[in-house]
């Protein structure tokens, strides 16, 4: 393995899972997520020498993926999976009670309906682990706008969860 490959793996390889999940929730399509991650890693591979601040590697690769998504797919709206077609399993079902699994699935349904402007900062925060300031920088909006979007995202998810849970309890 060359020096470049070692550097690349150490700096960026560790974000593969987070990036895939980010890509999935951006486009809500599995194939699109795979393509996006592949393209982003390849672009990062070609430009790795231009990354001066290694601490910024995570933010850098997420930004590449966001731009790649905008470049390739913004004009052509992704085909959003219908909820019935959504075959996404909970990673480790044994970690969750049946009630928790139901809540997780309801939350996923709500995520599929969540507008991108709300979904994107939420995934960056929860999956990417970015702070509000870092998200603001990535999205080129103010921190207060990020806070508002995160507030609305959570509100929509929790109200969907509470509504669906009530329906579920009635049955």
């Amino acid at each position, binding site marked *: 393995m060359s020096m470049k490959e070692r550097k690349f793996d150490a700096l960026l390889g560790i974000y593969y899972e987070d990036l895939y999940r980010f890509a999935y929730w951006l486009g809500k399509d599995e194939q699109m997520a795979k393509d996006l991650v592949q393209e982003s890693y*390849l672009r990062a591979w070609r430009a790795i020498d231009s990354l001066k601040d290694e601490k910024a590697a995570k933010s850098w690769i997420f930004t590449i993926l966001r731009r790649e998504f905008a470049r390739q797919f913004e004009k052509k709206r992704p085909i959003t999976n219908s909820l019935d077609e959504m075959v996404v399993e909970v*990673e480790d079902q044994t970690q969750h009670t049946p009630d928790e699994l139901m809540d997780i699935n309801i939350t996923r349904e709500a995520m599929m309906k969540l507008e991108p402007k709300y979904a994107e900062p939420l995934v960056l925060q929860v999956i990417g682990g970015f*702070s509000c300031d870092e998200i603001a920088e990535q999205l080129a909006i103010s921190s207060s706008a990020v806070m508002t979007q995160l507030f609305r995202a959570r509100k929509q998810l929790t109200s969907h969860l509470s509504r669906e849970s009530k329906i579920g309890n009635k049955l």
Partner: protein
Amino acid sequence: MNYFEFKQILASDPYSKDPDFLAAKNNDTRCYRAYQEAMKRERTIKAALEIPVPQHNIQHIKFRQAQDKQNTLRNQFFAVAASAVLMIGAGLFFLNNNQSSELERFINEALMMEPTVYMSDEEIPHDELQPLFASINTAVDGDLGDVHFMKLCPTLNGKGARMVFMNDFNQPITVLYMPNSPIESAFDMQMDGFKGKIVALEQGSAAIIARPHESTAQIETALINTLRPIQ
């Protein structure tokens, strides 16, 4: 920080590292209880977002990195050869599979009729492509991409074009443009060793044929966004 200010931050940023927020969480019982409740919801959200990740995709990424290195050294002859192999393979595949649609049958025949690809070493300038497209009532509105071969040919309901594009990774991708064969929406053609997709365009459709690891998204987007009917 009072309880209401705490709740406000909690509702949007439960992971906040703000010292006042952390102090309120640790020192105020009501705040701590609200925090516990919020984190319970957060665990559900996090579990919902943590979809399973396909690990085999990593191999594709590594393969493409290796390929990218090789691509800088690869000559056009390899591209031509690869393209020809692709065309023959795709043709054979189509021949051996029952095609359900008329359009797929046509693509099968078109690929079998002419399995050899002629390709120029250089990208064909767009101003040379324009008259060819114009002759099939098509305008190129924007950057179509890196076209190395284009030939007008008969298609299902009139004249169309066969093209070879090079994607960002110097991989030859075959495209069959069929301006007189509209489809309602894109569909995939599954095949062993190859991937095929017919995409809907503003005028007609286009079939994109490539090997599974080859990137076609960019070419697909370019076709959709740039090929327009001449009004």
